[in-house]
C-alpha cells in the first residue's frame, strides 16, 4: 500500500514539475505578444506626437517605455527560468584557473579589480551553465557596488566532490534579513523605481546551480561588509531525472 503511495507521490511530483515548467513557459511565451504590442503602440504614438511635446508628456512616455521594457525583461527572465533544464546542456572539459580568467576578462576595467586564486582543477561539466552562473555573480557584484573601485576576489578550492567557489566583493552587501530573499524571483534590494534591475539574475543563477546538483548561498555577517557568495558545483555530471 505504501509502495503505491510512494509511486503515486513521485508521479504527482513529476506532474507538478511538468505543470510548473508548462506554466512558466505559458506565462513567458503568451504574455510576450501583448507586451510587444504595447511597446510598438508607444513607438507609434511618440512618432505621431513629434518632437514638440510638453516635458511632462515626454517624461511619461519615457516612464512608460521603461515599464514596458521592464515587463519584457521580466518575461524573458521567466522564460530563462523555465528553460534552465532544457538549454545549455553541452558538456565539456574545463580547467581552473584558466576558465575563471576567461570569464573575468570581460569584467576587468578601470573601476574593477578582480583577483583569482584557484587550485588547478580540471573536470567535465555543463561548462556553459557554470559560466552563466559565474557571469551572473560577477555582474551582480559590479552592479551593486557603491565603491569607486570594486574589488572582487574569486577563490576556488576542491571540497570533496565539489568545486567550491567563493566570490567576495567590497560592495555594500546585503542585510542579513534579506539574504535569503535576494534569491527569490523579482526581488530587488532597492526599490523598483530606483533600479533597472528586475531581480531575476540570482534566481536564475541558483536555479541553474540546483539543476547541476550544486548549491548557491550567500555568506556574510552583516550589511556594509561586502557580500560573499559560496558556489558549490559538482565535479561530476549528475544524473538528472
Amino acid at each position, binding site marked *: 500500500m505504501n509502495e503505491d503511495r510512494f509511486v503515486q507521490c513521485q508521479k504527482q511530483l513529476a506532474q507538478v514539475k511538468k505543470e510548473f515548467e508548462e506554466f512558466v513557459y505559458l506565462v513567458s511565451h503568451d504574455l510576450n505578444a501583448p507586451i510587444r504590442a504595447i511597446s510598438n503602440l508607444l513607438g507609434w504614438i511618440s512618432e*505621431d506626437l513629434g518632437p514638440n511635446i510638453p516635458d511632462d508628456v515626454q517624461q511619461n512616455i519615457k516612464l512608460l517605455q521603461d515599464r514596458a521594457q521592464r515587463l519584457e525583461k521580466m518575461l524573458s527572465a521567466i522564460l530563462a527560468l523555465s528553460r534552465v533544464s532544457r538549454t545549455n546542456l553541452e558538456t565539456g572539459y574545463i580547467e581552473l584557473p584558466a576558465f575563471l580568467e576567461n570569464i573575468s576578462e570581460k569584467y576587468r576595467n578601470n573601476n574593477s579589480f578582480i583577483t583569482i586564486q584557484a587550485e588547478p582543477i580540471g573536470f567535465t561539466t555543463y561548462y556553459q551553465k557554470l559560466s552563466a552562473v559565474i557571469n551572473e555573480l560577477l555582474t551582480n557584484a559590479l552592479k551593486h557596488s557603491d565603491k569607486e573601485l570594486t574589488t572582487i576576489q574569486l577563490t576556488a578550492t576542491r571540497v570533496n566532490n565539489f568545486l567550491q567557489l567563493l566570490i567576495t566583493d567590497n560592495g555594500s552587501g546585503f542585510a542579513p534579513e534579506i539574504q535569503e530573499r535576494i534569491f527569490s524571483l523579482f526581488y530587488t534590494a532597492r526599490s523598483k523605481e530606483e533600479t533597472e534591475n528586475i531581480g531575476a539574475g540570482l534566481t536564475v543563477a541558483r536555479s541553474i546551480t540546483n539543476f547541476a546538483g550544486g548549491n548557491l548561498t550567500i555568506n556574510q555577517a552583516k550589511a556594509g561588509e561586502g557580500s560573499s557568495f559560496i558556489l558549490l558545483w559538482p565535479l561530476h555530471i549528475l544524473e538528472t531525472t
Partner: protein
Amino acid sequence: MKIITKIYLSIGFILLVFGFVTFAYFKQSQKVAKSIEQVLLSSEIIQTNSNLQHAVVNAQNGLRGFLLSGKENFLEPYYAGMASYLIELSLLKNLNRDKPDNINYLNQVDLEFNRWNDSVAAPIIQAKREVNTSEKARQHYNHLFYQSYSQEEGKIKIDTIQYFTGLIQKAETTNKNAQVAILKISQDRTDLLGIALTILALIIGVATALLLGKTIKRRISSMQNLASNLARENFDITLTDDYHDELSSLSADMNVMAKKLQQSFASLNKMNQELDQFAYVVSHDLKAPLRAINNLAEWINEDIGETTPDIRKNLSLMRGRVHRLENLINGILAYARIGRTKIEQTTFEFGDLLQEIAESLVLPPGFNFIFPTESLLITTEKILLQQVMVNLISNAIKYNNKSNGQVTVTAQEHGAVYLISVADNGPGIPQEYHEKIFGVFQTIEARDTIESTGIGLAIVKKIIEEKHGAIRVDSEPNQGTTFSFTWPIMLPVTVAHSQTALIHE
C-alpha cells in the same frame, strides 16, 4: 539471532527430544523382547524338565508293575518312559545349551538314569523273565530284587535324578521370576522417561511459540502502526528494533521508506508552494508595471489635449492590450491554482447557481437563458462547478452571432455522475478546432475581434479532469455548439445524518 534460526533451533531441539524418546522405546522393546525370550525359555525348560521327571517316574512305575505282575504289557510304561526320557533329555539339552550349570545337572541326571537302567532296571527285567526257568535264575532274581528294593539302590538313583531335575526347576523358576521383575522395572522406567521427555518437549515448544509470538506480534503491530500512520501522512514515527533479525531489517526498510515518503511529500509540498508562490510573484510583480503603464497611458491621454484621432486610437488600443494582459495573467493564475487548494464542499440547488451566474453576466437584449426545470441538489466544491459553468455560459454568450441568442443548460443524474450540458445556437465550431479549443490561449477568432484570453476552456477542462470527469464538444458550423461534461456525484455534506437514516432502514 535470526528468527528463523530461533525457530529452527527450538524445533530441532523438540525433534531431538522426541527422537531420544523413540530411541529409548526402541532400546526398551529390544530389552523386553530379550526378557520375554528368557521367560519363555525358562517356562519351556521348566515344562520339559517336568516332562523328563514324569518320564523317569513312568519308567520306574512300569518297572515296578512288571516286577509285581510279571506281565510283559506292564512294561509298556517303562518303555514309553524310556523313549520319552530320551526325547525330553535331548530337548532339555538343546534348550539349556547356553546354561552350563543346567547342562552339568542334566549330565548328572543322565549318568544316574543310565546307571539305574543299566545296573538296576535292565538286569532285573532280564532276571524276572527268566525267573521260572531255573532255581538259579530265581535266586539271581531274588538277589537283584533284594539289592534294588530292599537296599533301595534303585530308589536312591531315582531320587538323585529327582534332585538334579529339581535343581534345574528351581534355577529356572528363580530366573523366570527375576526376568519378570526386570521387565516390569524397565517398563516403568521407560514410561517415566517417555512421559517426562514428552512433557519437556511440549513445554519447550509452547514456550518458544509464546516467546517468538509475543516479540513478533509486538513488532509487527508497531510496523502496522507505522504503516497506518504513513497512510495518514504522519511521518514522524520511526521504528527502533535491536533484535538484528529479519524483522529488524524489515523495520529498517520501513524506516527508509517512511523517510523517502516524507521527503517526496515534502518536496511535493515544496513544489506546490513554489508554484503558488510563483503564481503570486507573477501576479504581483507583473501587474505592478502593467498598472503603471495603464496610468501613464491615461495621463498621456489627458496631457496631450487636442491631437489626431490616430494617437487617441493607439492609446486606446494600448490600454486594451494592458487590459488583455491583466486578464491573461489572472487566467493563468486561475489555471495554475486549480487542484492546488482544498475547497470545502457544500450542498446547493443547481438552479440557484445558474441564477447567480445569469445575474453576474451581462445578457445582451433578446438573449434567452433556459434553465433545467427539475430541481437538482448537488454536493460539490461550488466554486469549481461555478467556474466551469461561468466559462461555458459566457463563451456561449460572447461568441453568439444571432439576434435571438439562446443558451440551454440541462443537468441529470447518470449513474455515479451528473451529466451537464450547455448548448447554444451560436456560430458553431469547425471540426478541426474541437481538440484545440481546450488548449491554453487558443481562440478561433483573431484576438483583436473579441476580448477573449482563450484560457477559459483550458480552465474548464482542467477543473473537470481534476474532478475525474470528462468533457466533449458537439458542434457543426452554423449548427450551434453543445458542451457536455460529467461531474461526480458526492455524498451530501451531512454524512452522519444520512448514515443514521440508513441504519433506521
